[in-house]
Structure formats: structure tokens, C-alpha cells
């Protein structure tokens, strides 16, 4: 007997004929007719007109015919609610049938007839069926509660079905338990706040018992429900895990994945030092790998989940790289997912293998897959530093294949590699440039343009290359246009002479002929920067970029946590929270992973974007003429430790283009204005010294240490021993000029505190009292940090030694020479003025040791013209002794290199105002003359730094 004939009736009076057949007396004919009706229904024909006739066939003891009629009813009851009532009586009767299969069938079907009127009649039969003696009827009735709830939630609550359902969790039959759990879970989802699924240790225990006995599907329902439970403590958590682990050997992948979900969630609560924790981790890997031998669709689900698991707990699968190797016949969706996981698992240990595989994949047929493979090579380079070189050479090989999309993809990732390892692989640029013409995708073009702009000084024909792009400027995508604009501006700043025309062209294209606001605005900013201050423009445009890292493609941690709670479900396949694709209230609750008991696992906060306060000295610009007046107007009352009235804690907006630019603008002013007294002093350079776009964590450090730290250290004690050289006292004020008061003194830095050591001698005939001291504004803001401690009157011919602590928070004005200090001392006789010069080493702070990498970058970053060369003669010290000696004065040796008998010491110094001074000292064995090269953003300090070197080394 075949049923296909039912599909083939094409006669015209079909409905009419069917009607006649349905009303036939012969059972067989009736059955045939109903089958025809169902066939028509399946293909989408409207057979609702036959409703009364079909319902008439319902009253039969033939189970087969009954089922067919029910099928019809379920489909059309909704469109014919009034007639559906006709069926109710039969249902109610069937629910009393001695045959449990019929009882179950009736209650199952009744639940599917979604007509409000019927639901009222459903309640009584359902109540009976929930307590039926036969488990088959009970398990069907349990699901029916969920059906009824879907139609009329209030009714279900009023009738107390929920309580009955809860009772079923304790049923003796495992399948009844499983269905009750499934129904309750679903109902609970639409009542987020209800305490419906009241999970407590007793019910959990019942569920775990049922877990061992019920069908594979029932096990899934129970495991999914268990995953929502929050164990009270780690012990309970462990005992649940122990009872769930055997499920990992189930043949059904869904059971395995749901068990993995429970374990992943609950193991979060276990203390990490527990033996069991390690055992559990080990047990998770094999079943996950086994999932990969399932059918491809399931592999896909498994891989999407493994992708999450690998991000959450990389240790589980770190040794299983090979199983993710792509097979030639894998469906494309499996290939792409495997590739993703391969990159996540890539590490120094397996990188060689991974790269060999990726290279193989890059020659495959599927374009998407090949692209992803090429991209993967780039991601490996960024993730595993040791492999970067190998990755680059692999990419170059791939570029040689000349396959268009491979070349383009390779160029895009090489750009990223440049971002991660600047100035390391420029040798490949020539190869890249050869492929310029074949690039037709915006992303690749933009990447190439970026590379040309970034390394313009190393590409001879950079201007020609960029010019070639400029021809079709308006046809390019925005991405390319923006990149082109920036690249040409970079080029101009690096080679201003040859490219003036080009830059004008691009600026006018961007600002006048474009209606894209982003492009226009960027064009204007560049234009204004270039026209007002090219040097500032340089600082802005050619600023150091923050390095990129591999974390960029990871799922955000809170989302990841939520997705881990949804392992196995659609959410884990889409990598989206359920709220993103489920309508209504269902699944909107956000699930969380339980917290580890007493754990100190704090989330690592990223440092990027954090910025520290930096001390920006107030820029006061007095004129030379006022100098004397200023001094005279000084209020000579003993000053207290002067905290600068203006203490701007300027945020070093390291990532901010404009903020960075402003800082550097100030810094560069001093370069150009040189010795002009009226100009903003070298303090400005100090601001600029923190490279405009250095990662904030780096940029902020010197500012904090140098400025505020020193200021507050002033309160500390006096006279801590230090290895720094202190020059002998020299006479600053002759008795002749001081009406009998002779002052000699020197400067010293002791334990981070600057001190002025004075010797006052009374060479007059009368007693001197009421001493006070004041400084004029000076280059580094030196000011007395306390009153001059001359308490007793100074008798004739008496000498007194005083130490005056100094702060660097005083008003700032550039002096000539830089280290000049004008001092006023007052006593009961008169006010006396003198000036003295302090060694710059006074200002060298203790935390002036620069990180090697930063040193390297900074050295490169300071323009060559800022470099000064000096000879230090007649020093008979070897490099180690010299370096120790210098260290005593806070000149720190960062690195030492020996080339052909010549020691090269790389040293850094930081001034109190945050200016960094970098030095390279060459010492030739046997040659008493040292060569010193000093680089600093404020070149005028170089000379004084050199003097300090000489002073320190010679004494």
C-alpha cells in the first residue's frame, strides 16, 4: 500500500468528492478520504471546508483513523473555533478510555487545539491525567500543562496545575520527571521572577537520580535545568559535578554538551587548588574532541561552543591543536570554525605546525576560506611574537602566487603586523609596492596607502605611488580617501620640499570637492595645522601609535560568561545573547556564572586609556624689564612650603589627537623661539617631551614621578647620604657688596631633596638678625621650601652654616644661562641681590631610569637636529666605574654594548619637570677621551647635562 496517490488528485470537484467519501459508511473509504484530506493540507491547500465532515469521523475505535482526524483538528481548529467545540465531547470521553495510549492521545491532542473555549473543558481531564496511574499518560499530561500555559497562563495558575507539575518532579518514573522539568523550565522562563523552579538540594538530588535512568532527551532537559541552579557552596558544586561527569560518555552529543555546560558553570565555584578541579579539567577535553567526529551539522554546533570554551578556559584544549586541522572534505562552515579555533590555540609550542597548515589552506578553492587562512597567518604573527618573522615570510610567499584576493588579504594583515612591530619588517615594502596595481578592494588599498604613508621616508617614489591613487580620488571609498589624505600629509611632513603640490591637491580635494563630513573635517584640521605650525603638525600626524594586540577579536568577558551559561543552545551558536534573537520576554534573563567561593580572582582591568595627572607648570611670560621690579616687590615674609597656586592636573589625553597636539605645540615653541626670554620657557618642552601619542600608561609615568612626587617628598628629612657629587662652596656675595654679610654656598641633592647649603659670615661690626631669602623666577621653578633657619642673631665675625631645602614648584621663567638663579637675601640691614649657578644634576630625579624599549623608541623619535655631541677629556675610568659614578647622580645606564673594544653606554636622565635626556657615551679602552651624544626634546639643556657629566666624572 502506498500513500503517494493521495498527493496526485487533481480533479476539479475535489472538495465535493472528498465530502462524499468522508460521509461514506465504509470504514476503509473514510480512512482513505481522511488521508487525502491530510495530503492536501500538507501541500498547503485549504481543506477547512471539510471540518464538520472530518470531525464526524472522530467517533471511532479505530486508532489509526482517530489519529488522522486529530491531526486535521490540530491544524484547523483555530480557524473554526465554534465547530471545534463539537470535538470536545469525544476528547473528554477518550480521556476516560481504558487504553492508556488513547487517554494520552486525547490529552496530547486537546492541548494542541489552541481554542480558548476548549481550554475550559480541558481542565478536568487534564487534572485526572496528571494523576493517572499510567506513567505514559502522566508524562503526556506534564507537557500538556506547558501547552495550556502557552494559551492561558492565568488559567493554569488558578487551577493549581503548577503545583501538580512540581509534584511530578518527585514521580517514580524518570520520563515523567524529565517532562515535568522541561515544562516547568519553559513556564519559568516566561515568569522571570517567579520561584517556580524552586531548586533546592532535595529536588536536585531527585533530578540527579532521574538523570541516570531517563531517555537521552530527558537527560538533556534535566541537565539544562541543572545548569540554572546555584550551588550553595563548593562542596555541593563538586558533588553535582561528580554525578554529572559520567554523562560525558553518552552517545548523544547534546547530552554531552549540556553536561559540559553544567561542569563549566559549576567548576567556577571550585577552588583552583583542589585536586578534583584538575581532574575535571582533564576529563573535559576528550569528549569535546569526540564531538568533532559527529555529523557535520553537530560538529558545527560543537565548534561554535568550543570556540567559547577555549576563550574561557584555554587550558582544556591547549594540547589538542591537531584535531582542529581542516579536512579537505569538511563543509565550509566547519572549516571556517576550525580555523578560528586554531588561531585561538596557537602558541609558541605549536606555531610551526599551525603555520604549515595555514599555508596549505591558503591554496584551497573556497575564497572565503582562503582569505580567512591568510588573515589567520597575520593573527598568529601578532599573537606569537617569536613567529612573526616566519609569518611575514609566509605571507610574502603567498603574495608571490599573485592570486588577486590572496595578495590583497596579505597586504591587509601585513599592515597589522607593522602596527604591532613597527620598524621591523619594512624590508618587505618593496615587494608590497610591486602589487599596487592589482589591489581593487578598499580595505587592501587603504592598507597599502597606510603603509606607503607610514614609511614614506624609506620609499623613494612614495610621492608617485600616492599620486597614482589620487587620480581617481572621488571614486574611492571613504576608507581609502581618509587614508590617502593622512598618508599624503605624512609624506609632506617627511619630505616637504618635493611634495608641496601634492599635499595642496589632496587638501583641496578633501575640503572643497567632497561632501563627506569626516573627510572634510580631517582635511581642515590638517590644513590648519600645516599652515599655522608645521612642527606641531609633525608631532600630531607622525605621533607614535599605540601597538595593537591580539585581544581585539576576543568576545567581551561579560558576554562570554553569559554565553558559557548557554552552551549547546542557539545563543552559543550565534555568539549572541538570547535577547538578541528571541522575541518577547523569553530568554531575556541574563544568566551568570556563579562566583568562586572566597576567590580573589579579580578582573584584570586594562590599562589602556588610563591617564595620570601631569604637572604642567604655569606659563607666565614676564618681560625682561620687569625682572628687577619683580624682585623688589617680593614679599619677603618667610615663605612656607609653596604649593603652586595653579596646579593644573592636565589629563594627558594620549589617544586624543588634539590633546596630544596641544602639548607638543607648546614643546616645539621653545625649539623655534630659542633663547627668546619672552617665549614660553623650556618648561613647555617638558610637556611635549612625553610623546604625544605614546600609550598613556607610559606617557603618564614620568609626569607623575617627576612632578608631584618630588613636590611631596620635600616634607622628608634632610641630609640623607647620597653618592652624588657636591661642589665646594664658592663665594656668592662678597662682604663688600653685602654691607658686611658674606655668603658662600653650594647646591646638593640628598635623598631626592634639593638643598642649598649656605655659609653666612658676619664681617660687619654690628649684629645681624631677621634673615630671609627669596628667589626670582627661574628656569626650573626652584624656590625655598622653608624659611631660612637663622634663629640666633649673627654676631660680628661669626659664621653660620644653613641648609635650605628647595622645591621645584616655584614660578617658572627661562633664564640665561639656563641654570642661573637670582637670589635675594634680606636682613635687618638691607636686601642684597646676587646670582649663582647650580649644576643641572640637582634636578636629576631618582626615577630617571627609562625602560629599554621606551628608550629606543624615544631616541628614534627625537629629531636628529636635537642631538648634541661633546668630548669629555682626560677621564681614566673604565665604563663600569663611570657608570656607577654617574648613577650616584641619577644618570642611569640602561644598556651597555661593546663593539670593537668600544663600550657604548646608553643612559637616561629625567629632570624634575619631566624632561627626559637620553645619552650615548662611547668609551674607547685606552683613550681618556669620552664621546658623549645627548638627545633631548629641549636641546638647550644638553650643554648643562654635559657639564654635569664632566663634573661628576672628574670628581
Amino acid at each position, binding site marked *: 500500500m502506498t500513500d503517494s496517490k493521495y498527493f496526485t488528485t487533481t480533479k476539479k470537484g475535489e472538495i465535493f468528492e472528498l465530502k462524499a467519501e468522508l460521509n461514506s459508511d465504509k470504514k476503509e473509504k473514510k480512512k482513505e478520504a481522511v488521508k487525502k484530506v491530510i495530503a492536501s493540507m500538507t501541500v498547503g491547500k485549504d481543506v477547512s471546508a471539510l471540518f464538520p465532515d472530518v470531525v464526524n469521523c472522530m467517533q471511532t475505535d479505530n*486508532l489509526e483513523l482517530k489519529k488522522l482526524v486529530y491531526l486535521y483538528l490540530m491544524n484547523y481548529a483555530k480557524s473554526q473555533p465554534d465547530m471545534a467545540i463539537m470535538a470536545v465531547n469525544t476528547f473528554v470521553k477518550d480521556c476516560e478510555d481504558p487504553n492508556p495510549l488513547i487517554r494520552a492521545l486525547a490529552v496530547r491532542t486537546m492541548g494542541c487545539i*489552541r481554542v480558548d473555549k476548549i481550554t475550559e473543558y480541558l481542565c478536568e481531564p487534564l487534572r485526572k491525567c496528571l494523576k493517572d496511574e499510567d506513567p505514559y499518560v502522566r508524562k503526556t499530561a506534564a507537557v500538556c500543562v506547558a501547552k495550556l500555559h502557552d494559551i492561558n497562563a492565568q488559567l493554569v495558575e488558578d487551577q493549581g496545575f503548577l503545583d501538580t507539575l512540581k509534584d511530578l518532579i518527585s514521580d517514580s518514573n524518570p520520563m515523567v520527571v524529565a517532562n515535568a522539568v522541561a515544562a516547568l523550565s519553559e513556564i519559568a522562563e516566561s515568569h522571570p521572577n517567579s520561584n517556580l523552579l524552586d531548586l533546592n538540594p532535595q529536588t536536585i538530588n531527585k533530578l540527579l537520580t532521574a538523570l541516570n535512568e531517563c531517555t537521552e532527551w530527558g537527560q538533556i532537559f534535566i541537565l539544562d535545568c541543572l545548569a540554572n541552579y546555584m550551588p550553595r557552596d563548593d562542596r555541593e558544586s563538586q558533588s553535582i559535578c561528580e554525578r554529572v561527569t559520567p554523562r560525558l560518555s553518552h552517545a548523544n552529543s547534546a547530552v554531552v554538551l549540556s553536561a559540559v555546560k553544567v561542569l563549566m558553570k559549576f567548576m567556577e565555584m571550585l577552588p583552583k587548588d583542589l585536586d578534583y578541579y584538575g581532574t575535571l579539567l582533564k576529563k573535559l577535553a576528550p569528549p569535546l574532541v569526540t564531538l568533532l567526529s559527529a555529523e557535520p551539522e553537530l560538529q558545527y554546533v560543537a565548534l561554535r561552543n568550543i570556540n567559547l570554551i577555549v576563550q574561557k578556559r584555554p587550558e582544556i584544549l591547549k594540547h589538542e591543536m591537531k584535531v582542529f586541522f581542516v579536512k579537505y572534505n569538511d*563543509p565550509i562552515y566547519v572549516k571556517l570554525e576550525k580555523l578560528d579555533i586554531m588561531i585561538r590555540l596557537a602558541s609558541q609550542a605549536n606555531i610551526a605546525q599551525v603555520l604549515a597548515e595555514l599555508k*596549505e589552506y591558503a591554496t584551497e578553492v573556497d575564497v572565503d576560506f582562503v582569505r580567512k587562512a591568510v588573515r589567520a597567518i597575520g593573527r598568529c604573527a601578532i599573537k606569537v611574537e617569536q613567529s612573526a618573522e616566519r609569518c611575514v615570510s609566509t605571507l610574502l610567499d603567498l603574495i608571490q602566487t599573485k592570486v588577486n584576493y590572496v595578495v590583497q588579504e596579505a597586504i591587509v594583515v601585513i599592515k597589522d603586523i607593522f602596527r604591532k612591530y613597527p620598524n621591523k619588517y619594512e624590508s618587505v615594502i618593496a615587494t608590497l609596492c610591486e602589487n599596487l596595481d592589482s589591489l581593487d578592494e578598499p580595505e587592501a588599498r587603504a592598507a597599502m596607502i597606510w603603509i606607503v604613508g607610514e614609511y614614506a621616508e624609506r620609499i623613494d617614489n612614495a610621492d608617485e605611488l600616492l599620486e597614482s591613487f589620487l587620480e581617481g580620488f572621488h571614486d574611492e571609498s571613504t576608507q581609502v580617501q581618509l587614508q590617502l589624505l593622512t598618508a599624503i600629509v605624512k609624506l609632506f611632513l617627511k619630505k616637504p620640499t618635493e611634495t608641496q603640490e601634492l599635499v595642496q591637491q589632496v587638501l583641496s580635494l578633501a575640503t572643497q570637492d567632497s561632501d563627506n563630513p569626516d573627510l572634510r573635517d580631517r582635511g581642515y584640521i590638517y590644513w590648519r595645522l600645516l599652515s599655522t605650525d608645521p612642527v606641531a603638525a609633525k608631532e600630531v600626524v607622525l605621533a607614535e601609535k599605540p601597538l595593537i594586540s591580539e585581544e581585539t577579536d576576543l568576545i567581551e568577558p561579560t558576554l562570554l560568561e553569559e554565553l558559557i551559561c548557554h552552551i549547546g543552545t542557539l545563543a552559543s551558536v550565534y555568539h549572541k545573547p538570547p535577547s538578541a534573537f*528571541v522575541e518577547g520576554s523569553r530568554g531575556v534573563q541574563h544568566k551568570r556564572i556563579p562566583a568562586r567561593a572566597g576567590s580573589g580572582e579579580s578582573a584584570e582591568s586594562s590599562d589602556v586609556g588610563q591617564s595620570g595627572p601631569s604637572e604642567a607648570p604655569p606659563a607666565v611670560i614676564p618681560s625682561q624689564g620687569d625682572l628687577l621690579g619683580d624682585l623688589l616687590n617680593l614679599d619677603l615674609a618667610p615663605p612656607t612650603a609653596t604649593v603652586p597656586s595653579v596646579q593644573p592636573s592636565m589629563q594627558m589625553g594620549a589617544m586624543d589627537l588634539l590633546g596630544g597636539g596641544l602639548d607638543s605645540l607648546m614643546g616645539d615653541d621653545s625649539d623655534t623661539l630659542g633663547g627668546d626670554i619672552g617665549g614660553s620657557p623650556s618648561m613647555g618642552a617638558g610637556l611635549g617631551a612625553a610623546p604625544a601619542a605614546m600609550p598613556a600608561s607610559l606617557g603618564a609615568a614620568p609626569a607623575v614621578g617627576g612632578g608631584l612626587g618630588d613636590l611631596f617628598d620635600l616634607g622628608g628629612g634632610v641630609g640623607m647620604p647620597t653618592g652624588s657629587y657636591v661642589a665646594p662652596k664658592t663665594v656668592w656675595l662678597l662682604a663688600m657688596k653685602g654691607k658686611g654679610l658674606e655668603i658662600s654656598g653650594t647646591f646638593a641633592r640628598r635623598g631626592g631633596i634639593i638643598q642649598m647649603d649656605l655659609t653666612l659670615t658676619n664681617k660687619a661690626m654690628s649684629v645681624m638678625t631677621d634673615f630671609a631669602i627669596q628667589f626670582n623666577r627661574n628656569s626650573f621653578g626652584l624656590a625655598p621650601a622653608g624659611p631660612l633657619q637663622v634663629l640666633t642673631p649673627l654676631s660680628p665675625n661669626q659664621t653660620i652654616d644653613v641648609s635650605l631645602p628647595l622645591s621645584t614648584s616655584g614660578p617658572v621663567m627661562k633664564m640665561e644661562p639656563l641654570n642661573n638663579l637670582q637670589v635675594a637675601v634680606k636682613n635687618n640691614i638691607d636686601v642684597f641681590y646676587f646670582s649663582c649657578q647650580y649644576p643641572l644634576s640637582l634636578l636629576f630625579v631618582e626615577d630617571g631610569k627609562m625602560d629599554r624599549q621606551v628608550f629606543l623608541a624615544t631616541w628614534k623619535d627625537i629629531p636628529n637636529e636635537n642631538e648634541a655631541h661633546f668630548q669629555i677629556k682626560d677621564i681614566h675610568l673604565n665604563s663600569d666605574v663611570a657608570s656607577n659614578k654617574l648613577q650616584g647622580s641619577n644618570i642611569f645606564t640602561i644598556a651597555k654594548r661593546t663593539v670593537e673594544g668600544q663600550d657604548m653606554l646608553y643612559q637616561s636622565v629625567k629632570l624634575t619637570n619631566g624632561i627626559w635626556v637620553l645619552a650615548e657615551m662611547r668609551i674607547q679602552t685606552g683613550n681618556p677621551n669620552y664621546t658623549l651624544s645627548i638627545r633631548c626634546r629641549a636641546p638647550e639643556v644638553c650643554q648643562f647635562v654635559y657639564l654635569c657629566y664632566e663634573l661628576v666624572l672628574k670628581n
Partner: protein
Amino acid sequence: MIGGLFIYNHKGEVLISRVYRDDIGRNAVDAFRVNVIHARQQVRSPVTNIARTSFFHVKRSNIWLAAVTKQNVNAAMVFEFLYKMCDVMAAYFGKISEENIKNNFVLIYELLDEILDFGYPQNSETGALKTFITQQGIKGQHQTKEEQSQITSQVTGQIGWRREGIKYRRNELFLDVLESVNLLMSPQGQVLSAHVSGRVVMKSYLSGMPECKFGMNDKIVIDKQGKGGTTDDPGKSELGGSGKQSIAIDDCTFHQCVRLSKFDSERSISFIPPDGEYELMRYRTTKDIILPFRVIPLVREVGRTKLEVKVVIKSNFKPSLLAQKIEVRIPTPLNTSGVQVICMKGKAKYKASENAIVWKIKRMAGMKESQISAEIELLPTNDKKKWARPPISMNFEVPFAPSGLKVRYLKVFESKLNYSDHDVIKWVRYIGRSGIYETRC
């Protein structure tokens, strides 16, 4: 949960449509046809979201099965269910084809009503279903009350896979150890990845409710016994033939009849088997795999229009054993114009439609070697893209288990009926087949 289930033919016509939830309308049927079946592109994902409705689909020959939902369902479960659905249908009417589905549509509806209730999968064991799904099996009205309650308790009970009162005159069981050995080898002969995925398939014709215990040369079990000093297993000396005493199993999964908690705690495999054929366990090994064949490729490009290919295969097992159905598939470039092949053994043919040279050898003993050489003429092309050189793949069948797995025992206990373990006739067979057995060239 699952909101609806549709079955389509290759043209996208609906053969079966069963909707379980209100949120799935008739338009969902069409959406899938338009967006997936009629889409020109190859399937990029087995789960497709169209207008906030998710479609899970699998394809069997040219029939599409799609499960539809609007909720955050357990995706793994839906696919497992679709596979199960295919198994159940196949058990009832054989191959899943348009004709068979049309011929059995009433049965399919009845099955769908039973195994999926409101979108929740219910008992889907064919053995149990056949006792009460009426289209072809026993008719409802002929059952006695006892029979009925027996059916319901079986469907819902602990041992849903076996009914009481089975009787055989001769108690017999067959064990097949079926392995597929997978290999990916580099052109230089380095094993990039290799694993065996095996299955133990059992056909049981046993009376009553027999309690079975299955033992194999699992390293963990053997080591445990070795420590205990009870190594007087007679099977052991015989095992020495393969050179391996025990094997390390990476992971295994079991039919639901196996008591998993017992395996977890004692690593013993005990169960009451379903009647007839079923898959007892699956396993996976990666260590010490016997690779039955080694393929040594040599591809040389002679100018732009000619390729020379030489492939040597070596068999690597006991000379007394015979491998069968050996097939080596050597891919050729798309612009191949002609091929000349010389092989020492078997038959080789260039199949233009498959872009490959197919070399077939009926039988080959162990520790032998054979060779094929071919000259491939190419049409000159201006296609810039290089030929991707797909790997050389191999198919074969060998009469041993490449993983080294051995069945040590399968004990049968039935306390109520009077037959003992010794009365059961047992058959064991090992078949090793190639899975994806590829060598890159």
C-alpha cells in the same frame, strides 16, 4: 523548543509539515525554501536565522529536513533529533527519498506526533515505537490490557529500549568492531594527524532480559588488573600477535543502555542490550595506530602544459592478511586535456568528470608495494590562480582493527531463564576501513 518540522524535496516542495507552536506560521515554510533551498550559494551554515526565526537543516540525499524555532533552543539537541528522525524513518521504510516519504506520509505524521510533543523530543527508540505506532505494526484494538500497560511502561520506563518476554531458540550474538582510520600526511611522509574512530556494533538475539558485560584490551583496565596481579587471562598470549597488549582509548561514548556511572567509577561496560542490531559504543584512539597503507606521491611539473605523477603505495600489515577494495584517487588539474597511465597492478582510469585518476586494486596482501605513473597533458590557460593540488585520497578495507582493539569477552547473564554464558553462540569480526585517508602532494 522546536516550533515546527518540515520536510522538502530538492525543488523546495513541502512533503511533510508539522507545526507544534503558534509562533511558527505557514510563511516560515516559504522563507526556508526561498532563502536556503533556492539560494544559489552553497550552504554556509546549518543554522540559518531568517526574520528572527531559526532554521536547523540537514540533508539526506536530496531531501531537506528543517526544524524551526523562535526560541533559544538546545541546538545540539535539535540536530541530534533530526538525525534520530532520519534513523527512525529509515528503520520504518528504508531509504529516505521523496517517493518513500510520500508513500508513508501518514506514518510519518503519526511518528512525529509521538516522538515530538509540543516540540519536546520523546522516546524515539525504534524498538519501542514499533510496539504501538499503528500504521504498519500491531493494531491498537487487538491489544489486551496487559499488553497495553506493558507498552506504556516500556516506552516510559528505565529500559525503554527492550521489551520483556523475548524468546529465542538459539541464543546468539554478533559483535562487529568497525573502525575507520583517518590520516593526513604531508608530501614528505610526516603524519600530520591520524586517528581511528571505531564503533562496536552488536546484533543480539538473546532471550529474556540478559545482563551483559563487555571487555576489551582497554589500557586502563589492563593496567589496573596488572597491578592486582590477576593477569592469568588466557586471551592475552593470543593478543601478542598484534604486538600490542592494550590500547589507549582517548574517549568513548555508549548507547544509552550502558550504565555510565558504572563505567565512570569502575570502567566496566555493563548493560541490558536492545533486541536486534544497535551500536554499543563508539571510541576514538590516536596513539600507536597501524596505518595500513602508505602513499608516496611524486608530482613534477614539466613546463606549463605537462605534469608527471608517480604514486607508490605500500601495504603495512601481516603478509597473511589481505586488504580489499583498494582505491587510490589522484586529483588532476581542471585544464587536463589527456592522461596516460601505467600501473603495475589493478586498473587505473582517468575520470574527466571527477577530475581524477582512479586506480583500483581488488586485493593486496600485507608488506607489498605497487606503483602507478601518469603523464597529464594540460591545456594552456591564462588563469592566474594556481592549481590547488588537492590531496591524494585512498579507500580500502582490511580484516583487522587499525587501533589494535581486541574484544576480550562478552559475558551474558540471565538469571531467570535457564541458559548460561556458555550456551550463547558468539561471533566477533574486525573490519578496518579508510575514513579520510589523505596524503598531500
